[in-house]
């Protein structure tokens, strides 16, 4: 069981790097979607006993993170006529190296943390830290609003991984509440993206730093 979870977290870490290294928006969105699905099935693997509520949360997470949000983002891309090139502030090679260094540091640093013995063997904490770092790099280092949304989603995936540590303690209501918040957040961002596009004819956040009458 642990090895399957670790394998899936390894895949999620790989998808982090893919999101950092890809130069096209659709592939960034796709890797975020796949990561959401990979992380979404994880509660089923961690929970020993099959519980229909856990299964429900997993199914909803996979549905929302794997299909609903990516579709919203692609639709926003299409309707706002955003071209597919990611415009990086931090180039692809430096951001890849940053992400890889962050991943390695997360794996190395998680050993030093005082974790519960049942969590020490899994990659949950390193995976969460690495995803959060990747999310930050994407948020800081990309010019387009859509890729920043992707960074935010990866950040959220990392926090979700952290939350899995407490799966026995968190009520499922909290989990579904987080999911709902996320969806609403993406909704709002989608609307804002549309507005920015209409007002400025571009989604380049660099243009939003100038105040004007």
């Amino acid at each position: 069981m642990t090895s399957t979870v670790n394998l899936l977290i390894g895949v999620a870490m790989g998808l982090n790097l893919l999101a950092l290294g890809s130069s096209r928006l659709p592939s960034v969105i796709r890797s975020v979607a796949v990561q959401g699905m990979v992380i979404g099935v994880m509660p089923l693997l961690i929970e020993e006993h099959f519980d229909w509520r856990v299964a429900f949360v997993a199914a909803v997470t996979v549905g929302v993170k794997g299909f609903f949000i990516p579709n919203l983002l692609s639709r926003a891309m299409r309707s706002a006529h955003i071209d597919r090139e990611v415009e990086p502030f931090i180039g692809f090679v430096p951001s890849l190296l940053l992400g890889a260094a962050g991943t390695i540091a997360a794996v190395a640093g998680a050993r030093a943390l005082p974790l519960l013995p049942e969590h020490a063997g899994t990659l949950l904490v390193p995976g969460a830290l690495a995803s959060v770092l990747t999310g930050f790099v994407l948020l800081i280092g990309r010019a387009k609003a859509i890729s920043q949304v992707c960074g935010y989603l990866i950040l959220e995936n990392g926090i979700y991984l952290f939350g899995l540590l407490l799966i026995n303690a968190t009520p499922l209501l909290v989990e579904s509440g987080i999911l709902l918040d996320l969806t609403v957040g993406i909704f709002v961002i989608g609307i804002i993206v549309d507005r920015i596009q209409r007002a400025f004819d571009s989604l380049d956040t660099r243009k939003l730093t100038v105040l004007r009458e």
Partner: protein
Amino acid sequence: MIALLESLLRMLVWLLLAPLLPGIVNRVKAWVAGRRGPPVLQLYYDLARLWRKNVVLSTLASPGFIAGPAVAWVAIAGAALLLPLGPGGSGPSFRGDVLLFVYLLALARFGTAWAAMETGSAFGGMGAAREVSYAVLAEVSLITAILALSVQSGSVTLATMLAPSAGPGAVLLAAGLFAVLLAENCRVPFDDPNTHLELTMIHEVMVLDHSGPPLAAILHGAAMKLLLFAVLLTQAVLPIGQHPPFVAAGALAAGVLGVTVGVGLVESLLARFAFRRVPLLLTTAFLLCLFALLLAWKGGAA
């Protein structure tokens, strides 16, 4: 006496089988494109034809123009001899021979680049500059992959390093080494061996001024390098050493064939990348090998 004979036999296998691989790659490309394609043995005919031809020597060229390809060919042949051939084992196997292997490959590259600049043509120097700048990045990945293998097996001898499989990081290592193979052999996402536009060529532009037997040596050396990397990749990933000889030989041959067909498929399905995107791909290869190294390290500790 027996050992000498065995080494000679192994050398013959390397020398005779190597020109087969570019033929297979071309055949796969032709098959994907729906053409008939050149015969599989085309490179053998080319080599025979080139061997009978005269050499055109520039008045500017020093003896290095001939010596460069010769040094490169001998270095690649030496590296090939060090690499074990599945159940055949390797000839002069000793502790730390993997370092010699890496250095021989670097020496071969130096030989080609040196000869490329001998005639004083601008294109030769340009191609050599590109070749070595890609090589800097590809070599890092190769060395990381070799480190991963040596950590995994706890040895610095090629024969013992390559016998077991690469453990949990095998998939990462395979992907990384495949990218290194494509870069080192100037295959499609990095360079197009069929291109005839001097401004975009890398390997081909270095050998523009060569003719006759030196060109034959360069072509044969390139084919041998392709075979060498295919064998390295197959043995690094598959646990060749844990099977009876015939199964191992079959697995090795199948692996090399699979890698060759893979090269052909990549070549027909991908276009070459723009120069500025190549470092990204090579960095990815490096990271793949680096994570394989970390997996080998952590897996060994746990």
